[in-house]
């Protein structure tokens, strides 16, 4: 992957000037390049990685395993795309192994998520079975540890 994308993956808030400094590029060149990557769909979007507990966000998240009946033309795509469109669904992946789709769902309460699963997901034609796992605690998300903290303990001057 190119260096610029590596950087944005690490921290999307780097300013074009800072990216230019880091990658020895021209600031304008950075701006244009990012615009291209956004326009051609390489960069889908940006979001902050937030510690929910600290932010006071009381939403609940569940991971739902879904078994599907594949269709003759298109396999799982049509159904997966249909499920992914629900605004409650934050992630949707086709998986190998014991089930077909792994879907992350977010709702305000446990009840919201449960209702979404029973009323929306499991009633989609082609869904054979669902299995819902509620998330209890976050230790790491999007590459960030929930409890970071590392103090520089090096000597101030060393050979």
């Amino acid at each position: 992957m190119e260096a610029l994308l590596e950087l944005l993956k690490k921290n999307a808030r780097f300013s074009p000037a800072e990216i230019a400094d880091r990658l020895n590029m021209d600031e304008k060149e950075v701006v244009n390049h990012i615009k291209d990557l956004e326009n051609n769909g390489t960069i889908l979007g940006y979001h902050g990685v937030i510690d929910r507990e600290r932010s006071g966000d009381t939403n609940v998240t569940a991971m739902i395993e879904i078994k599907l009946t594949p269709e003759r033309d298109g396999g799982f795509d049509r159904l997966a795309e249909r499920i992914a469109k629900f605004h409650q669904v934050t992630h949707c992946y086709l998986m190998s192994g014991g089930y077909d789709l792994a879907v992350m769902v977010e709702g305000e309460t446990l009840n919201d998520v449960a209702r979404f699963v029973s009323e929306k997901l499991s009633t989609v034609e082609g869904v054979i079975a669902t299995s819902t796992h509620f998330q209890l605690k976050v230790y790491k998300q999007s590459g960030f540890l929930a409890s970071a903290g590392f103090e520089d303990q090096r000597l101030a001057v060393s050979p």
Partner: protein
Amino acid sequence: MKPLEDRIAKQVASIPRSGIRDFFELVQGRDDVISLGVGEPDFSAPWHIREAAIFALEKGQTSYTSNLGLPSLRESISKYVEKQFHVDYDPASEVLVTVGVSEALDIACRALLDPGDEVIYHEPCYVSYSPSIVMAYGKAVSIQTRLEDKFALLAKDVEAAITDNTKIILLNFPTNPTGAIEPLDELEKIAQLAIKHDLIVISDEIYSELTYSGNNGIDPGEHTSIASLPGMKERTILLHGFSKAYAMTGFRLGYSCAPHVLTEAMMKIHQYSMLCAPIMSQLAAVEALENGDPEVERMRRAYAERRNLLLRRFKEMGMPCFAPGGAFYAFPDIRKFGLSSIEFAHRLLEEESVAVVPGTAFGKAGEGCVRCCYATAYDQLEIALEKIGNFIGRLQ
């Protein structure tokens, strides 16, 4: 009673105090200082490596190992050196695991030098080279490399320094403190000289993974080990270790790769003085070699970005600095500000609370330069560079 000073062995008494230590004492105890004075990564060792060390302790792996080092580690080192440097060493008889490259250098000197034997080395250099030679009763013959040559070592200077007593040429590329890379043609000429005069070469290649090239400065550069050149393996002691690339300084682990006879001689000293390197460090090192490449690359890239920032800011503020091809140091030229390296470093510390190391701490050829280590968190580096900019703004 005779004063205790008089009991110190002449050899040891003759060694001057380290310039680094002087400067360290100035900085010590001040918590407002941003330090570009360190000689080690700011990263902690990658977790999978630390985890391997923890696992070793959990399993009760607390014994001595073979004097040469764990066979599994020597196997891994041999494979890695073949891949990285294209030189093939027998893990059973040509690889010795040591407590850092520092120990390896010490025992290499002690194994090879008789009183009066000369060792040619290039300054500015890591602070332990001359003392290691002197403590082994050798004569340290320094070659002053020059800013104009980007601190590369010129074969003609080596040739001029060779005498009937020369036994060893000691090389360090990429170089601490300059970040210099040796051009291949000069390296080849030096190899020819070593062969012509039948000399041993000790090559400290501890920074060899940390190289930078390309217009973006992000790509890794080429590194050639002198041991890989024709006719050189049989006369070279290749020194390497885990401190820099794997950020494992505190694990204290290095190694030497050398022909069996030389390895045996070094091993004699190692077994009686050190016995073996710590087993948990050795087990962590196996993990580092087997699975550490992605983390090394991640850190190398982070250094590359900081190097870009540093070089750009230096350029903007009018601080001449050649683009170092390796390690994590820049060695800017401060001569135009009319201060000695020591004055510059002292005043920068006093006035802006930024620590850099005077070039003279690494030999007199370092006069006119200061060493700035960019293995420092990016935001801290940005602040430090702004402060350096303010400082030299007042000097101009």
